[in-house]
């Protein structure tokens, strides 16, 4: 497999990390915006929506796997927030509150589908954005490995790598300590790495993808 040629280049994560951190910064007044919204300020809702909608959509997308479902779940989450105007309650950390709603909706959705939380039963094409033939076999392997992670591990990875939240923010959102979140993320990465390594080393990636394609064709 030619893709496995080792290249010791500049770490790609540096650029990525620098770009991610500012996304999550500067949202300390979320609570004030939320209160303004609950008090009847529609502009505050727009502000709240623009700040958090995309990342919550990505969160739902990576957990549920289907773009249309993720959009519906995000929509439902906002509807619940809007209905709070009729029964206002104090929200100290809006992003944690929003994430909790999104998380419950995702879990309920997964339960309704009578599916294992690992999403291993999903057709692979369902949880990937449609990008034609751009993806390499190795990317396919990564996506499969990510989808096979346990829910808790995958959630932390998604929040960190896809949504751009820091570990301390994730800890606040999911109600765990920063150390626990960091440990969980490290284990998730190690497990993901081990899966990818195994496929690289044994050359199973191509065979596995071929098997997967074959099974999908049979299902159709």
């Amino acid at each position, binding site marked *: 497999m030619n893709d496995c040629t080792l290249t010791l280049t500049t770490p790609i994560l540096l650029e990525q990390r620098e770009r991610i951190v500012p996304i999550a910064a500067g949202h300390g007044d979320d609570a004030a915006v939320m209160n303004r919204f609950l008090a009847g300020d529609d502009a505050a809702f727009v502000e709240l929506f623009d700040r958090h909608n995309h990342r919550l959509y990505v969160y739902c997308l990576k957990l549920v796997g289907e773009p249309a479902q993720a959009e519906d779940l995000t929509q439902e989450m906002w509807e619940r927030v*809007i209905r709070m105007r009729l029964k206002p309650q104090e929200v100290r950390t809006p992003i944690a509150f929003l994430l909790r709603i999104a998380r419950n909706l995702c879990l309920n959705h997964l339960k309704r589908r009578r599916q294992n939380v690992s999403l291993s039963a999903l057709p692979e094409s369902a949880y990937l*954005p449609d990008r034609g033939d751009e993806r390499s076999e190795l990317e396919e392997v990564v996506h499969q490995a990510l989808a096979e992670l346990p829910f808790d591990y995958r959630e932390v990875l998604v929040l960190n790598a896809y949504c751009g939240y820091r570990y301390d923010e994730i800890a606040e959102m999911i109600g765990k300590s920063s150390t626990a979140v960091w440990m969980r993320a490290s*284990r998730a990465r190690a497990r993901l790495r081990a899966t990818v390594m195994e496929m690289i080393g044994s050359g199973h990636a191509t065979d596995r993808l071929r098997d997967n394609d074959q099974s999908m064709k049979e299902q159709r």
Partner: protein
Amino acid sequence: MMTEHDGLVERYLDGRMSPGEAAAFHHRVASDERLRRMLRAEQIIRGTVERDRRAIPHDHARTRTRALALVAATPAVPQAGPAATGWAWLHGMKGIVAAVAGTVIVAGSLVTLSGTGGEPAPVPGSSAPPAVAMPHPAAQPFPEPSATAPAVPTPATPEPSASSPAPRAGTAPVTPQRASHRPHPAEKPAVRAPEPPPEAFASETPREEAPQVIIRNDTLRTRVRIETLQRR
């Protein structure tokens, strides 16, 4: 489970190694096949995640439009609590107030019932008309009963006959009842409403409409029967 290699790879890719550490790492990677594969796997994972993240569309116009429409249709509930209206002290005592009000209502009802023997007392001197049964709407299509139709007997004062003893002067007329019947102490005589003057009856409901009262049992069978009788 995290190993030493995992830690090294993450530190290297995160850029947390000093130049000396990085050089040592390069030497180690060149000689360690497993570490080399691990580094390659991590590079692939990070690159894939980054490309995948960029590929997710940022267009949420539909969600936004729906949400904004719902926001516009959902007004905020005004937060005018008791403190805002100056009735906070009453809000805090609402349980006591409710209990007192309930007690007053129950006591008032008991006093009223015990004072009148269970029925409202007639107001002396009042000329309240008696309860008149209104004709049922279902009886309207039926023809008016003829004058020869038997009228419903109305309670009337029995006229003194020859067989009945005449009341003695100074004694109240005795209502016909069995001599052996002795009223129970708890049984109180029914209070009869004062009879209105004859003009009141004449002005209210004519006696010819009395058969319509029977029709109040408006089952289909009763209607048909009455209609048949009237045709005959």
